[in-house]
Structure formats: structure tokens, C-alpha cells
């Protein structure tokens, strides 16, 4: 009965046993691989480790709700482009191939049959912006695990001096 009740419009944000709220496991894998090229691991962890996929998935059930179609069709198009060029999904490509495909997307030159519904350049710009938000934004939004980017930038915590925002209690 609970399953039947959940089968309404709210389903996408309470996806049962799946680890994500909106994304499928395959979509999340592709997204993590893209994020890790936008902010790659070096002496500091990259975007995937920092939880950028969690950030985006959470916002897709909130302020980014209107971008769900862009993500659903966009991530599918990334894998479709990847198969067309290399015969494999994006997440399993080596770094050179991944970077080549992302640069094609950035320039709007990704294989066109995969990008009938949206522009690869627009989708890539969206991914760059959201990845930056998830990596450099406050951990309370679901990314920046362990405040890793703020540690990397040498930013004290809280990032600007002042009281922690959640130390402020609502007046009663």
C-alpha cells in the first residue's frame, strides 16, 4: 500500500531503496565521472569525493526541480555520445577520452543525434556551474564533504568569521 501511495508524482523524490532521490544509479555514475573532470582529484580530493552528485541530486528535489528534464535527457545524451564515439558509457572511458568528449560538449560539437532536445554546450555550462556550487558551497547543501574545498583554499571555518548560521536559534 505504501508503494502504491508512493507511485504518485512524489515518486521521483522518494525512490525507495535507490541511493538517490532523483537520479538513477546509472545517471549518478555518469554525473560523478563528469564532475570529477570538472574538478579533478589532485593533492586534494575531487568533486565526486566531495559529494557534488549528492548536492545536485538534492537540489533537483528542491530549487533545481525545473531542471530535471535537462538532467534526465542530458545525462542520457552524454552516454549516447560516448557510445557513438567510443562504444562505451562515459564513466568507463579513460581520462583522455572523457576530456575530449567534454570539450566537444563545451563547444557544442558533441555527436548531434544525441542532442536533439537540448544543446550540449548549455548542458555542459549547467554542469560546470552546479559542480562549482557543490564543491565550493557550504556543506549544508549536500556537497563539500568535510569542508574539503574550504580547507584547500585556506579558509577558516566558518569560512568568514562570525557565528555559525545554525548557532542562531529561532526566537521563541
Amino acid at each position, binding site marked *: 500500500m505504501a508503494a502504491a501511495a508512493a507511485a504518485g508524482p512524489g515518486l521521483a523524490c522518494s525512490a525507495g531503496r535507490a541511493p538517490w532521490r532523483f537520479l538513477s544509479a546509472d545517471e549518478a555514475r555518469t554525473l560523478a565521472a563528469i564532475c570529477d*573532470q570538472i574538478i579533478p582529484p589532485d593533492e586534494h580530493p575531487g568533486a565526486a569525493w566531495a559529494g557534488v552528485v549528492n548536492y545536485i541530486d538534492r537540489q533537483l528535489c528542491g530549487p533545481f526541480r525545473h531542471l530535471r528534464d535537462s538532467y534526465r535527457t542530458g545525462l542520457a545524451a552524454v552516454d549516447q555520445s560516448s557510445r557513438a564515439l567510443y562504444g562505451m558509457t562515459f564513466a568507463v572511458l579513460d581520462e583522455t577520452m572523457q*576530456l575530449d568528449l567534454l570539450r566537444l560538449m563545451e563547444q557544442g560539437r558533441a555527436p548531434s543525434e544525441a542532442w536533439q532536445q537540448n544543446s550540449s554546450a548549455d548542458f555542459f555550462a549547467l554542469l560546470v556551474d552546479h559542480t562549482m556550487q557543490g564543491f565550493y558551497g557550504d556543506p549544508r547543501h549536500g556537497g563539500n564533504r568535510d569542508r574539503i574545498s574550504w580547507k584547500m583554499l585556506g579558509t577558516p571555518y566558518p569560512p568568514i*568569521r562570525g*557565528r555559525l548560521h545554525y548557532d*542562531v536559534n529561532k526566537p521563541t
Partner: protein
Amino acid sequence: MALKHVNAVVVGAGAGGGIVAKQLATAGLTVVLVERGKWYTAFDCRKDDLRNQRTTVLGNSFGPAEDRNPRVFVDEQGHEHLLKPSDGAYSNNAACVGGGTASYGAMAWRYMEKDFRMRSTYGTIAGSTLDDWPISYADLEPYYEKAEWEIGVSGDDANNIFRSPRRRPLPMPPLPPNREYEILKPAAQRLGLHPFDIPMLRNSVPYNGRAACMRCRWCVGFACEVDAKNGTQNTVIPTALATGNCELRTECIVKEILTDSRGRAKGVAYFDAQSRLQEQTADLVVVSGSAIESARLLLNSRSRLFPTGLGNRSDWVGRNLQGHAYTGAVGLFDFEVYDDLGPGAGIAICDFNHGNHGLNGEGLISGGMLANEFIRLPYQFVGWRAPGVPRWGRAHKEYMRQFYRRSIGVMGPVQELPMFDSRVDVDPKVKDYWGIPVVRLSGHRHPNDQVVGKFLASKAEAWLKEAGATTTWAFLPGTGLSGGQHQAGTCRMGDDPQTSVVDKYCRVHDVDNLYVVDGSVHVTNGGFNPALTIMAIAYYASDQLVKSWKGTHGAS
């Protein structure tokens, strides 16, 4: 049941309306202050780096509600866009008690004498409606002083040799300098410039019963959690309420100004917090909704006598929308320059507000002040990319790591040339949640704003280089419509009803009990943040209102 008749209804509890309400209430008039937003506390305005008044990627935190308040924006190619308040082109100002003053950076600028005489100074400019104000700096000087002392300003402009004369110093000393200030000040002096401590509507010492600034850098875009930043929400509005003569009604959306058969204003119709339509009658109506919403309200107040809206017989309501063409530069250093000490901005120069000359010695029209920047949260720095740094990937990450704490931004507001076709209109089709026609924005900047923007940016680069920057690059203004939080100009003040909307006392030309008191009345918008000027005009207009008040007209 009809609401009790009052002497004055003031629409909008921001920089202008808050002051008018207080001045009228303390003079003994009964006032209803109507505000479309809420009264926020520090709890409501948590220091959220992705959701605040400046960074709205996760929404807009000081109102209006995202889903109830669309606007139509017509871009330079003529394409229409339906926008939410968090979209940049929406030109949002805050919708809350205090208006923009709850979340502003709080720079407290007096405009310069020439800012009130732009046409006399620069002549008639093709393509622009540039004109002189009908009042002078001297007319406003006592009211600037009143705003500085009553709302509360710290700073020290004694070293600003370009400042307009003042009778009284600022009530509070400046905050001690941060590292950027220490680096920029001697550099400016070596260049022969005249740096000084920016006047700020911020307590540097305890003032007005509230604490001093705690030096966090979360100023612009946020509400101050220790209430050391001074806006109308923590000064004049509480004073107005304490008189017992003023009632504040929040979350009330004014639909139109009502007029009687003789063409006088008789009150407003508004939707209350439960979306019920109410009528508040009053002897006086004061519109203080900021330049975009004030114009919308006048345009939406149509009747048989006023078929194109109130004050709009000459088609000037909503025209000349101005903001500021922000320009400046960023410099990268090979040592740490950032010390997290708020409010961040602290040092400015006014050497380039007027009297500027281009590369070939040609005289330039207008200018602006330059100051170091306020807050720089990590996500905001993502876009501060030096030339050649890619948007993403390994090199971008390395750039962030190297330069987040080794960079300074110097920015300034170019005084724009007003444009008749840069305008606020009401859309013929789109309506908001309450069924009220929404704002339709269209137009673009005058080409001069780019010329002056480039000039000012080159001065910012030179200043940063002298301070030791190894790399600098310019931020130049776009060509598109201006507005935003510095929005002004849409109900121009003037002596001639053919070319203005209100008279020199902010009274609408053809409705003798209707006033507009906010940035709308600015003829030109100065090369400065406009808040203190809006406040000064509010004190000035209120003085005249109280002086001419002869008691209730025609009420039972």
C-alpha cells in the same frame, strides 16, 4: 468591515517609506505602513552562501516569493523572457521590512554637487534624457546629516578632497582597517589619489542602543546577525511603531491607488496576508516601493480620469530606469592579501567621479567612485578568473587554490546616462498570483556607460598594480538594461510636468495628495550607492509634508 481611515498610507517599508512613516507618525499623523514582504530576523536570514541577496543560485532569501511574482524582460534582441525573482535580469530589490537596507552593504554616500547638475556640467547628451535635478545638494545637505545621525553612519571622509561640503562630521569613527585597506591606501597615495574611509551605515561603536560590528564579512547580501548594520528595520520603523500612531502591515500586496471623482487619491486597495482584498482610505498616499514597483503601482492605478495610470499624462512614469554600470578590476598578488575581516569594503577614492579625461585628452561624461569589494565567498570567487584560466578542470582548481587569498577586487558604480526607452511598463498579458499585471522591463544602456566603464576599470587596474598586483584584468559593464538594487529614475522629479512625474517635493504633478518617495524620483543616480540619498530625500520630503499638513481633509 471597512478599515479605519488614517491620515497617511505609505506603500513600502524600505529606505524611503520607513523614514516617511516615522516622520509622519512622530508629527502626530496616523499612518498605515504597508509592506509586501515579511519582517525577517537573523534566524530567517542565515548566512547561506548559495541563497542570499547577492547569490541566488538556490533562491532568493529576502523576497519576493519565487513562484508568485513573475516579471517579463525584453532583451536587446527583442525576445521576451518570463523571469523569477532569483533571475539576474529580474532586477530584484528586496521585498521585506527594511527593503534593501536589511541586506545591503550599507555604504552611505552623499552625492556630489555636480551629481545634481549633470546637464549644466556636461550639456545635452544625444540619446539621453540627462538633466539637472530641481533641487541642489545644498537643499539636501541638512537631510543627509539627519540620515547620518539618525540611522547611524561610521567612517571618515575628511581625506576626500572631492566631497561636498558638510556641516557636521559623521557620528561614528571608521572601523579599523583590514589587510586590503593597508595595502591599497599607500598605493593610492603614491599615485597622487585621495583614499579615505568609506562612510557606512554600520555601527563601529555601540550606537542607538545597538552593538558595534563584530567584523564578520557577511554584510552585503545578508541580514546582520548582531544588528550592527543600520537600516530602516532597526531604526526608524521601530520608532514609528513606538509612537502608537503607525501600524505596520506585512505581506500585503498593493493592487492600486484609489482615486475619487475629483481625481484625488483616497487610499489603496491591497491583498492582505490571506489574499483578501482590503481598502485602506487615507488623506495622503505615499508610494515607496522602489523604482520598479513604484512605477508599476502608478501604471496599474487606472481610472476614467487617469486612463494611462496616475502621474502618467506625459508618459514619463517608468521611463529613465537606471541602476549602475558596475566596473572595476581584480588584481592577483604573490602574497596573501585577504584576512576575512569584515565588512570587507573599507577604502574608496572619489578622484574619478567628475572631470575625467580619456586617453587622447578628450573630456569624459560622468564617472564613479572606486572601492575595494565586500564579501568574497569561495563560490563567488569561481568566476573571478584571470585571463587564460579555463572555466573548469585541473588548471581552474589550481587557480582557486593559488589565488583565493591572494586577490583584491576594486569596483565602482558608473553614473549612468538616463535613457527614455529604458523603462518599466506593465505587461498586457502576464499577471502575478493576485491577478495584478506584472512589470515589463525593456531597454538598454547609453554607449557612454561603456566608455566610462573602461576608463574607470583602467584606473582600478593601475591602483592594483601600484599595490603590487602581478596580474590585473578589468570587469566591464554590459550594454543591457540596468536596474537591480540601485534602481532609480522611473518617477523623475522636475519642475515641468511635461518632462517629469513629481515636483521638487516628491508630489505627483496632477494629484496633490499623492507622493512618490524612493529612488524613483532621482533625475540621475550619482556615481555612488544610492541608499543615503534615498534616505535624505525621504527626510526632506517628509519635512515638506508635515509643514504643509493642515489636518484631515474631508474625512468623517
